[in-house]
């Protein structure tokens, strides 16, 4: 009996970063109850699979501020930044065995058409490059 061959594994955290556009955010808000229910079901599945560490959604980007480090001193401006079309709207933080597994979960997110999910591995504490000046200071 064959078994799927497995690579050397290390546990890793992955963040599924929800990136919506104004249009996709509006589409989601139009059927927000449905979206919340579908997301709730996915969260339950993630819990039952033992992979969910955290999941949160962000408030309306118009209510946020941006601290801009473009100049000599940080400048605070209202609302979402500049020309960016895709806005970070929320995230799932998962404990999974591989990037592919994180991607499998990302596929199951009930995201609306036009939005995207970025899948990124969380760097471990001992991965801070030597000489970067802040190792152990965090």
């Amino acid at each position, binding site marked *: 009996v064959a078994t799927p*061959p497995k690579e050397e594994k290390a546990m890793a955290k992955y963040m599924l970063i929800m990136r919506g556009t104004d249009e996709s955010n509006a589409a989601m808000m139009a059927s927000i109850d449905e979206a919340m229910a579908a997301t709730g079901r996915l969260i339950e599945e993630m819990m039952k699979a033992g992979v969910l560490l955290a999941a949160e959604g962000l408030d309306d980007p118009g209510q946020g501020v941006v601290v801009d480090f473009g100049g000599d001193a940080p400048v605070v401006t209202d609302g979402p930044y500049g020309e960016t079309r895709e806005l970070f709207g929320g995230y799932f933080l998962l404990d999974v*065995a591989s990037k592919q597994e994180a991607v499998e979960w990302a596929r199951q997110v009930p995201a609306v058409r036009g939005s995207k999910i970025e899948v990124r591995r969380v760097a471990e504490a001992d991965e801070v490059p030597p000489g970067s000046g802040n190792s152990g200071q965090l």
Partner: protein
Amino acid sequence: MGTADVEAVWRVESARIVAALTRFTGDVGLAEDATQEAAAEALVSWPQASPANPAGWLMATARRRAIDTIRRRTALRDRYALLAVDTAVDPAAASVEDVDPDRIDDDVLALMFVSCHPVLSPAARVALTLRVVGGLSSEEVARAFLVPVATVQARITRAKKTIAAAGVPFELPPAGERRARLGGVLSVLYSIFTEGSTATSGDHLLRPDVAYEAIRLVRTLAALQPDEPEVHGLLALCELTAARFPARTDPDGTPVLLEDQDRRRWDAAAIRRGLAALTRASTGGPGPYALQAAIAATHASAPSAEATDWDRIVLLYDALGRVAPSPVVDLNRAVAVAMTSGPARALAIVEELVSADRLPRSHLVPTVRGELLARLGRPAEARAELELAAGLCANQRERSVLLRRAATLS
């Protein structure tokens, strides 16, 4: 879709598929073999044509393989009639939505109870749980426990035969047995976790991947049995212990004692999850896992070893000794007593353990005894104890720390 994608779908879906097929066939061995065969087929066919619904594909293919096997087993004709109703399902179009989610939860839970059934040897429970619930290959189980692959395969084969021969039903244990059987499942999961958090042998102190498999399974159990305090107690214990992993070894793998750990390296998010689980575990009188988690929580919320509430830790060990008496608990209590009342009082507890010979052949007793003797200014005896401990310790990393410590005493 490539091999890694097949593996990923496997990790997410295999327990549910094995559980559902065990429900259909009543035979966990057959269900597991059929699921593995489906995965093997996926490895060949998915790179050529990716299925639209990989989970449904695996489920339908595994079901067909199970039917093939049953067809070959004339004794199981009746079961086949039951299954054959679904043979028209086209795997490409099949959907996992035709599986009742509540039923699947109970099936996964039943699979855990079967894998941890008391008719099996402890080693077989661990191997079977990791294989059929965790979705690990025999190679991975072997690597996790540093035993030959053939040993694991033999354990799993024997375990499946034992379950079939004993007629273990695929169902949730009856209410009267449920608590005790749940305790059995928790102890299997905890033994997997401890193997990862303090490797009993080999050249690494920690094997985080093994601990991770355990935490994942405990989280699954906590989601399926949300009203069982001790499940949350074990989850809290695992999260709070794993939170210290990043600080427990030097970059070169040398163990770092709790008092010397850089607490900024502890995983703050894991501590928060552990404390949240501990709250859920603390409804009613705390059980052994909740008490151990409470001890870990006391460490986790202390800024330093000196600033730790050692009085509370002694009290918690007292309580733990009452609900789950064990010489290891007494030994740990002695370490806490040394912090509150000095090494002499602690040594008296350890001497009692030694004279009663309650932990023979364990390196832990001479380790603690040696450390207490050193603090009492008896270096020659301390050194002899630490050398004795090193001789008994099977973990190379721990052994070298003990020998180095012994060498500083004269």
